[in-house]
């Protein structure tokens, strides 16, 4: 087994410094990725590796990473997990791709994901489901399932993801790794294939909060190519990880521990809170009364924006094109019907409905109003606390196929994560226990631009616990799963 399996960024850094060939060492990560395919199916493309071109001064020089296949990479196929883009090779780099390349990081895989980032299980990929490294009969979570699985399996020290309703945090929770979503506008969306533009944000999955901070430091910051990216000086995210938790006010909301949360999961999270308290954190009861409305609001707003964002996929300029269409109408409808999977079609139709004449006020406009109410709930809470804590998900990873027949059940499980996107806030999920031998995630939410508070709390927790060091059981020797 590769000695660097499960190594964090620093582990890789040390090894690279000592290695006779940095390139060969980095390449060994890709070998691990290739070997993991049968078990995890976490990769869509394993590209040719860029030769390390950077002086050792570059912050992430030689560090291998997996990049969610939602981010455009020049000259390297980018599919968004969809048949629609299965042969699309972008002629340009997403800003996040370029910044990681500038930092010296080496892309070893484009990771599998739910199609167009729509999904919470990574079962909606045109390239097959991703399997959880902890139990290959179970989902990895989604939509950044491939990225979470690869980090959890120790193949790469970090991976990128995107988070629109929990797509970084939830798979991180299911896979027992750390997943961070910044404040909306903190990281450029240029080149990150759009799902729901007012909710999408790039995120990082890594072995612990400190490494999330390291990567965030490289990718965050104003980008003139993204009008929603905010011009704001970068904090020192790494330094924030040393702030500790003494005196930190931690909000606990009853709504995040609702009846839908499995008692054993709630217990893990409460134990984690007790540890934070013992380390000097102050637990404060707070209220987020409109939290239950976040699912309906999200499932109006996200599909609405998606229905518009996905209108460009029409077979004319790139991507899949239906064969021998006799007229324009047929070109459009067959291209799109052939190119999109069921969940995507479902959301496009819902989105079209809620924007259509006669329904806009009752659905879309109203959802945006409820969104503001939810954001106000958070703002009110943050007047009294520094971070808000709770379970990332109501339960641990479910079995493959368990929820595919019932999209609403799938949606409902996003209850603890989507409100964060509606309000545009930063949040992290860190492993805090095991239930049935499956990881449980603790979510910490910060106020807008409060990345440092979130990282401080998460890093402090990880300095007094070792859940983030737990590893999934080795894959069964008898080979491929079902």
């Amino acid at each position: 087994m590769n000695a660097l399996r499960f190594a964090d960024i620093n582990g890789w850094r040390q090894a690279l410094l000592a290695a006779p060939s940095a390139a060969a060492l980095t390449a060994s990560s890709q070998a691990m990725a290739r070997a993991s395919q049968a078990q995890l199916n976490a990769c869509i493309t394993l590209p040719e590796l860029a030769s390390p071109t950077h002086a050792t001064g570059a912050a992430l020089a030689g560090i291998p990473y997996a990049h969610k296949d939602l981010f455009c990479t020049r000259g390297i196929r980018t599919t968004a997990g969809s048949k629609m883009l299965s042969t699309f090779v972008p002629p340009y780099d997403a800003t996040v791709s370029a910044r990681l390349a500038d930092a010296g990081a080496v892309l070893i895989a484009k990771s599998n994901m739910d199609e167009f980032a729509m999904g919470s299980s990574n079962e909606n990929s045109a390239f097959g489901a991703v399997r959880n490294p902890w139990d290959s009969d179970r989902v990895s979570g989604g939509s950044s399932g491939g990225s979470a699985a690869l980090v959890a399996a120790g193949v790469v020290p970090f991976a990128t993801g995107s988070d629109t309703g929990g797509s970084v945090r939830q798979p991180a929770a299911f896979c027992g790794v750390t997943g961070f979503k910044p404040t909306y506008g903190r990281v450029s969306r240029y080149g990150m294939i759009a799902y729901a533009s007012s909710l999408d944000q790039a995120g990082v999955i890594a072995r612990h909060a400190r490494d999330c901070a390291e990567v965030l430091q490289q990718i965050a910051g104003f980008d003139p190519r993204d009008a929603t990216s905010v011009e704001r000086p970068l904090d020192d995210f790494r330094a924030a990880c040393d702030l500790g938790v003494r005196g930190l006010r931690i909000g606990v909301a009853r709504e995040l521990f609702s009846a839908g949360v499995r008692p054993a999961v709630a217990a893990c999270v409460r134990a984690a809170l007790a540890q934070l308290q013992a380390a000097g954190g102050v637990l404060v009861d707070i209220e987020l009364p409109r939290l239950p409305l976040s699912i309906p609001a999200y499932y109006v707003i996200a599909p609405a924006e998606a229905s518009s964002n996905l209108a460009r996929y029409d077979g004319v300029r790139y991507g899949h094109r239906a064969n021998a269409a006799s007229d324009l109408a047929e070109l459009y409808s067959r291209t799109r019907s052939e190119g999109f999977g069921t969940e995507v079609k479902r959301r496009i139709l819902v989105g079209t409905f809620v924007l259509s004449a006669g329904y806009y006020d009752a659905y879309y406009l109203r959802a945006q109003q409820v969104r503001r109410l939810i954001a106000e709930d958070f703002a009110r809470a943050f007047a009294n606390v520094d971070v808000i804590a709770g379970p990332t998900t109501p339960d641990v990873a479910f079995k493959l196929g368990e929820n595919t027949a019932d999209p609403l059940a799938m949606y409902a499980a996003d209850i603890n994560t989507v409100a964060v996107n509606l309000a545009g806030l930063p949040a992290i999920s860190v492993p805090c226990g095991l239930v049935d031998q499956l990881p449980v995630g603790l979510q910490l939410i910060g106020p807008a631009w409060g990345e440092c508070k979130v990282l401080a709390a998460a890093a402090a927790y990880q300095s007094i616990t070792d859940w983030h060091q737990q590893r999934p059981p080795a894959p069964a020797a008898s080979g491929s799963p079902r």
Partner: protein
Amino acid sequence: MHIESSKLDRLAILSRLALSADERFALGADIERVLGMVSALARVDVAGVTPMAHPDDASLRLRPDQVTEADHQAALEAIAPEMRGGLYLVPKVLE
């Protein structure tokens, strides 16, 4: 909430999706259930609440009026499903 089949057809046309009979049945049912779920929004008192389309401190930044892009025709052609004489091709459109 019930969606008549004509309404579903219209949604499919507006979205340029050709649905098979099975899809129409299944997706129609799904959409009804989703809309049923989101109807919880109808019971909320939203009087006087400004819709939130963007995080509050967002304000549009402008760029200077300068040409910063070169000719990308070759790159666009390389990824185009059908291009001839530098033009994208679609089935003949009658106006």
